[in-house]
């Protein structure tokens, strides 16, 4: 499920209106165009044929938004590529949430396409995915509310002209979808700024004695990392304003192998790694190991396992394989072998030196050792674990 196919790098030829700050770079391709630019044609086709009711200021109806994310074929034959490969339920709940006045919180371990889904949702709903607040430990309140143009402020005193609206404030004023990335990284007091915005739908500006009221169509999509819960856990008051959707990891091994090999291929090309043939078996093995440890059960469903503390996400599998490829290409014989990925896997699995090491060894001894055709892998892992 999770992961999106990443078409990002695939669509360089689509027209993208150069953002203002890219001035001068006429004709230069953005490294990564925004979703609404990359898929402008699909969005236009959907809008043209969408006859269902649209909520206020939505560019598309909820049905069309769901189709945009999940893919499909329109009546006129236009093919909409799937942006998100995963359970339909998830997308439906997410889109429906945006259609009510509740905010949407996307949770998931790293690498489950949270940001990706949020960007495409915003692009499809509001036609603009750029009203974005990136959450960090240092995100100040101003980033969420508004800042000041201090030259103006000093020269003319507080006025609307001196005010520099933040993305959320702009979204409120225009009835658009705002996005907050990594919500749980933001310090708790700054997070709570959102409470008024989400419950009262207003943003007071005490300096001017004014307020900005959200226009119909405003909503907010936040993403947060499951594993970081507790870093700056959401207060229950804030949490209550969100409908939560958890983005799962890929459901089937095939889907995950597919995602990993595709991404590895893309990354390998962008890093100019020499092409390594026949890595697919090793990729399959890495994915199998990750899935088994993550799910706590072997693929044949017969043996339960303990799960280590690491997330073992698809994204990590990708980096293990990429690392292995680099090893094989630069120091090995060019073929991805068990030894090339063993060290990477060990690093990904054993995050807690005591508990995880036991789990890993148990896995090696009880599962890997007896599996047919895994002898080389077992030996390689024993070597690096020793």
């Amino acid at each position: 499920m999770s992961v999106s196919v990443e078409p990002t790098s695939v669509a360089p030829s689509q027209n993208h209106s150069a953002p203002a700050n890219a001035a001068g770079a006429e004709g230069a391709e953005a490294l990564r165009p925004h979703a609404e630019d990359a898929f402008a044609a699909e969005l236009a086709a959907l809008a043209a044929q969408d006859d269902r009711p649209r909520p206020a200021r939505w560019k598309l109806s909820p049905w069309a938004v769901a189709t945009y994310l999940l893919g499909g074929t329109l009546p006129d034959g236009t093919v909409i590529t799937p942006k998100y490969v995963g359970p339909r339920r998830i997308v439906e709940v997410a889109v429906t949430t945006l259609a009510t006045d509740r905010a949407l919180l996307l949770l998931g371990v790293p690498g489950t396409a949270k940001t990706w889904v949020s960007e495409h949702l915003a692009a499809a709903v509001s036609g603009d995915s750029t009203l974005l607040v990136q959450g960090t430990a240092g995100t100040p309140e101003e980033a969420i509310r508004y800042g000041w143009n201090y030259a103006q402020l000093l020269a003319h005193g507080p006025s609307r002209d001196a005010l520099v609206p933040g993305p959320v404030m702009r979204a409120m004023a225009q009835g658009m979808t705002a996005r907050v990335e990594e919500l749980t990284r933001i310090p708790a007091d700054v997070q709570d700024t959102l409470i008024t915005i989400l419950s009262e739908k207003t943003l007071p500006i005490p300096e001017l004695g004014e307020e900005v009221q959200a226009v119909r169509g405003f909503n907010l999509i936040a993403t947060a990392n499951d594993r970081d819960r507790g870093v700056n856990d959401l207060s229950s008051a804030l949490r209550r304003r969100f409908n939560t959707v958890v983005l799962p990891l890929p459901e089937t091994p095939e889907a995950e192998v597919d995602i990993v090999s595709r991404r590895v291929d893309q990354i390998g090309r962008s890093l100019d790694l020499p092409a390594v043939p026949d890595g697919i078996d090793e990729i399959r093995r890495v994915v199998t190991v990750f899935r088994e440890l993550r799910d706590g059960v072997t693929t044949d469903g017969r043996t339960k396992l303990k799960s280590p503390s690491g997330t073992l996400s698809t994204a990590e599998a990708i980096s293990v394989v990429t690392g292995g490829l680099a090893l094989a290409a630069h120091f090995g014989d060019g073929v991805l072998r068990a030894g090339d990925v063993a060290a990477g896997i060990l690093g990904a699995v054993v995050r807690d030196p005591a508990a995880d090491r036991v789990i890993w060894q148990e896995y090696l001894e009880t599962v890997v050792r007896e599996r047919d055709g895994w002898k080389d892998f077992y030996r390689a892992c024993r070597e690096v674990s020793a």
Partner: protein
Amino acid sequence: MSGMSISVSPGGAGRLTGGAARGRSDDEPAGRAGEPDGMGRTEGADGADGRNEGDGVTGVDGALGRRAAAQPLLLGVRHHGPGSARAVRAALEAARPKVVLIEGPPEADALIPLAAEEGMRPPVALLAHAVDEPGRSAFWPLAEFSPEWVALRWALEHGVPTRFMDLPATHTLAWGRDDAGTDPDAEKAETSGDGRGSAGEGTAEHPAGAGSDGAGSDGAGSDGTGSPEADVRVDPLAVLAEAAGYDDPERWWEDVVEHRGPGQGDAFAPFAALEEAMGALRETYGSGGGGDRDLVREAHMRLQVRAAQREFGDGVAVVCGAWHVPALRRKAAVAADRALLKGLPKVKADMTWVPWTHRRLSRFSGYGAGIDAPGWYAHLFGVSDRPVERWLTKVAGLLREEDRIVSSAHVIEAVRLAETLAAMRGRPLPGLSETTDAVRAVMCDGSDVPLALVCDRLVVGDVLGEVPESAPAVPLQRDLARLQRRLRLKPEALERELELDLRKETDAGRSRLLHRLGLLGVGWGEPTDSRGSTGTFRETWRLRWEPELSVRVAEAGVWGTTVLSAATAKAEADAVGAQALADVTALAERCLLAELTDALPVVMRVLAERAALDADVGHLAQALPALVRSLRYGDVRGTDTGALAEVAAGLAERVFVGLPPACSALDADGAEEMRRHVDAVHTAVGLLGDTLTAGHADLRLRWHGVLRVLSGRDTVPGVIRGRAVRLLLDDGEVEQEQAARLMGLALSPGTPPPDAAAWIEGFVGGGGGMLLVHDERLLALVDAWLTGVPAAAFTDVLPLLRRTFSAYEPGVRRTLGELVRRGPGRGGGITGATAAGVPGFAADLDQERADAVLPVLRLLLGSDDVQDVDDVQDVQAAGTAAQGALGEELAGVAR
């Protein structure tokens, strides 16, 4: 989408007819609800029923008009469908029939009045079983929201006569037998086959009723699902749903039939529409999967309807699976129907009511009455209005009870989300999948964990039915009585003791019976220690039959219809519910004792899972010996213990991996406990090594590796290190030289004295005295260390040392004392002990006298060992041992 959605499957309709369900189910996308057969777990419902209903929807033109004056009122339903139930009640109210015929075994007619009794509370099930073979049985479960139950209650409340009109269980049970080839043993294996065959009936016979749900459910489910034909068969419901634009037939059924609010418009219209659709379906697809049996059943039903019409005129109402409606409407020659019913096999059948549970109504439990969400349906049936709001309020209440903060605002938001979702998905009303999605997103923070609770407690529910005490006895009681007669074991109130010799067939049977009853909570016999013999082939029981045990037997009836199947089912359920690893191992042992071979795989699987997830090596180490014991005991009884051996080996592997890290940073008590675990594992591995097959041949080798790691790791407490060296020494894995070196290291001046004392305790504790007596080097090391302990530390180590040495035999202590007094280390080496001599003995062996002992030694050790004994060293060692032993004895006498 959500797998959860529960929908009812339409199939369920025919409870009785189970066939319906089956048909449907096949089609369904996998996870969905299932099967429909609602009814019968056992019976395979005939596929047909389910189907029927579905159809109805499409063709809603319904006119009641069709019903000609003399026609009976045919109410086609979906078994366990709350919408159907509501419609049936409305139709009965409107029509006021003079008699109500219900699809179900006519043998149960006599039991109908019980349904009106105070003590009767659904869910309950009609249970039919062959009198002389209680394992052959079939269930017709009824929930409060089952249309059949509603019709039954309506008739009883209005004093209208009621009859069951399906083919008698006497035949349907016999059908099952034929299929199974009359071999009772084959029942289980064959069940699914039977089920399919007889599906219509509901008869599945599995022994299962009892026991393994699996079996039972197969009956039902299998019709649809398992068989190859099933794949071929078209699911009419899916066809109808697809025509209506639904990708999921279950949901379509829900939208069109189940979610209709109460009483709008004509009470008969939905039935007419259903009938028409079913008629069209049957025309297109033939009579579906029920095959001949469906035809026979329908012939019987037609005859019954006709008889009722003769008696009551046109005031006849019929409640049956919708699939059968067109067949009942059809005019058929009486003679032809009679001919169909000729020569059916018969078996003597008996019926009773048994309590049922929502859990068993749901497919989750495997009994497969056919619906996934009995709790949701009961809710839909029970509430007067605003089902979604009330449901979400209920969910919020449950979550609050479990200390999750859920406010009214959450409920409001969840309702809004569910409704918007329903609109987005194009459904008229939020169904279970919408409400579940809303609960997950709003109340559970997107997590499936609290949601699982909701599904378990509310969607399925814990409702337990009751039956009046006047209901006839359950088959389990009969089976028990039969076994008691056969084994000549009479229930007596007087306590008495029973000695069993398991080598005798009857006694072994008695032992198994008592063990099985024990598992079922029927504490008739209590095992006690055998007097006299301690052999594994003897058991002593204290027997006493208390009156309340009869009640226990009745309660245990829910587990199955025979003692064997009930005990198997109970053991499986216990295993799944067990908390601690040790509980599961104990259960495995009991299963072996009770010879529940069928339960063993489940218990083993649970055991393997628990072992895999248990992070406490102590637990694992505790579980291992019991398991190894069971393994050996299973050998004695001739049980197949292959799975057990696999699990034991796996457990041992996990212990090996986990033990070294678990042994660091322990306090004195923890270290002592861990030492006991090490001992236990050592013994277990020794025993296991004898039993295991090639795959784990190196188990002992690996254990030695673990011991070596333990002995050499400084963070491991002294007592464990010492013990590890000792165990290696005993196994001959470490030379005496090496052991002495390790001891020297452990006792070197740098080591804190308490640590060193602990090492000594581990090394020579528990009968290690002879070691010191015979290897003076070791004794010298201890002696040297002890004299070097500073005065300040001496009082610290004294208790430890005292504990170690006071456990020795007096003779050993005395010998040691004398050796020490004489001064250490004079002899040196292995022969040193001999050379050093003991007071009262010569300085060296008297060769002649020592030789005189040899014949006896050979005898003791077995002649194979003669070779070894020839070795001079060994002779000397043996002589020494004898001498030592003699010395002890003398010392003892002297004292």
